[in-house]
């Protein structure tokens, strides 16, 4: 076709601009890959160090004394499992209730203060949470799984609350109005219409909070303390994976250090499984 307007759609400066753009994209890609590096490095290192000491006994036996070979971390795995479960029973309903309040009823000054306090609680160092529970519970009742789980729940609470709030806020307001317009009371609109509509996202938030608390060491040092054996009850000092890893790693005995690596591997695998499981769950919900 003949050119009537004599338009130019390419130029030298254009090519220069494209080159610059590609260069910047390249730098960004490099930095993004670099950001993944610590993750890959940690995973590879933990797996290579830990896989050798991982056997059936690791899951079923108590730790052996220093100098003896064999044994396992059954007490720590059970202790961590128990405390994370108890923490969930306390932290998930509590955190979700707070998140629902902030999202659905949170207007005005009270809500602003609460939201700010929740954010502050998220950034409180976990060791301070441990000391707080020590002063609140351990001084009176001693070291126990109860105290450990409570400390974990305090850490979990703001994470669950804020994620619940943010997720509910993503639901457009006309959905709430549609519920109200059907003559459904507000609380039922929230629990029976809004929450089921975003359950996948809510579960994701909760799972990430569980992954976060499962690896906490500092708050458990002051609350559950640790235990070389199985705890007889929930009111006794209780072993946990992070604390046991910490103790074994600094013990100076090669056998215990190897066990610590295996424990670290289990912890990393647990977090993997949770993240992977969450994604699988979302995928399943969508299809």
């Amino acid at each position, binding site marked *: 076709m003949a050119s009537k307007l004599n338009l130019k759609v390419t130029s030298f400066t254009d090519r220069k601009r494209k080159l610059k753009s590609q260069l910047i994209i390249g730098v960004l890609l490099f930095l993004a890959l670099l950001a993944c590096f610590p993750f890959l490095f940690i995973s590879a290192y933990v797996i290579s160090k830990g896989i050798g000491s991982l056997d059936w006994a690791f899951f079923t036996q108590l730790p052996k004394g220093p100098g003896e070979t064999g044994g396992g971390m059954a007490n720590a795995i059970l202790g961590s499992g128990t405390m994370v479960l108890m923490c969930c029973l306390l932290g998930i309903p509590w955190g979700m209730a707070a998140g629902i309040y902030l999202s659905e009823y949170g207007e005005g000054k009270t809500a602003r203060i609460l939201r700010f306090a929740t954010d502050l609680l998220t950034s409180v160092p976990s060791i301070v949470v441990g000391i707080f529970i020590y002063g609140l519970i351990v001084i009176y009742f001693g070291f126990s799984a109860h105290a450990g789980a409570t400390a974990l729940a305090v850490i979990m609470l703001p994470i669950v609350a804020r994620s619940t709030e943010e997720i509910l806020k993503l639901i457009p307001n*006309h959905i709430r*109005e549609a*519920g109200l*317009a059907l003559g459904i009371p507000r609380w039922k609109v929230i629990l029976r219409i809004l929450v089921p509509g*975003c359950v996948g996202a809510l579960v994701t938030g909760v799972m990430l909070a569980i992954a976060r608390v499962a690896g906490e060491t500092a708050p458990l040092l002051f609350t559950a303390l640790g235990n070389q054996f199985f705890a007889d009850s929930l009111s006794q000092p209780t072993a946990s994976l992070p604390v046991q890893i910490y103790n074994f790693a600094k013990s100076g005995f090669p056998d215990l250090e190897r066990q610590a690596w295996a424990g670290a591997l289990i912890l990393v695998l647990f977090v993997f499984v949770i993240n992977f499981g969450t994604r699988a769950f979302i995928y399943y919900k969508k299809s």
Partner: protein
Amino acid sequence: MDGEVLKVEKLNAYFNDFHAVKDVDLSVNYHEVVALIGPSGCGKSTFIRCLNRLHEEVPGARCTGNVWLDGQNIYGKGVDPVVVRRNVGMVFQKPNPFPGLSIFDNVAVGLRLAGVTKKSVLSEAVEEALRKSALWTEVKDKLKKPGTGLSGGQQQRLCIARALAVKPPVILMDEPTSALDPISTAKIEELIVELKNDVTVVIVTHNMQQASRISGRTAFFLLGELIEYGKTSKIFTKPQNLKTEQYITGRFG
């Protein structure tokens, strides 16, 4: 049935300091379709949201005046807005099926949360509502599929079915077809005309042909005031007010 199902007296609605609806008096008869027309921002939507007490759910919103629904003042003492809304259904501008709920559950949810648990009662009500909203044949084989997976026009008919399922005597519609294509619009208009046998419809519309096609009476709003209200045929052929005439002939708005 003769008489007024809705009687609005001196209704004033506000958003904080903004006076959105000014001293409106208007009544609607049983089994009537009333259209509200007027330029954007003239208070039509706010006005109908006062008829099911949804206006007050917006932070900073309030209203004064009386609205008599079947002889009872919905702004009277001791009135529960939840019960009012059960009797005055609403369809919104944007189709808004509940996310995560199936087609069936979207229609059943109103009854279910009102305490109906019997499966047979629910399925009958859902089928009836979907038939009335002319959606049944299109969705009867995929009731378990999510409501958000339907097309825009189907979603809006689903929302109408959802509103019909709880059998409210009055249904408010806030520009229900403005987001839809002409074919879906035609279906919904047909539907509204048929609904007249069972319910009373108050509909906000920007489409004046639509108002003239479906409504018995039309109200013209301007800047929060009710300028003229009367038989639709008369409003569109011999409006009494100069502003109404200017608006419907497209000279402003």
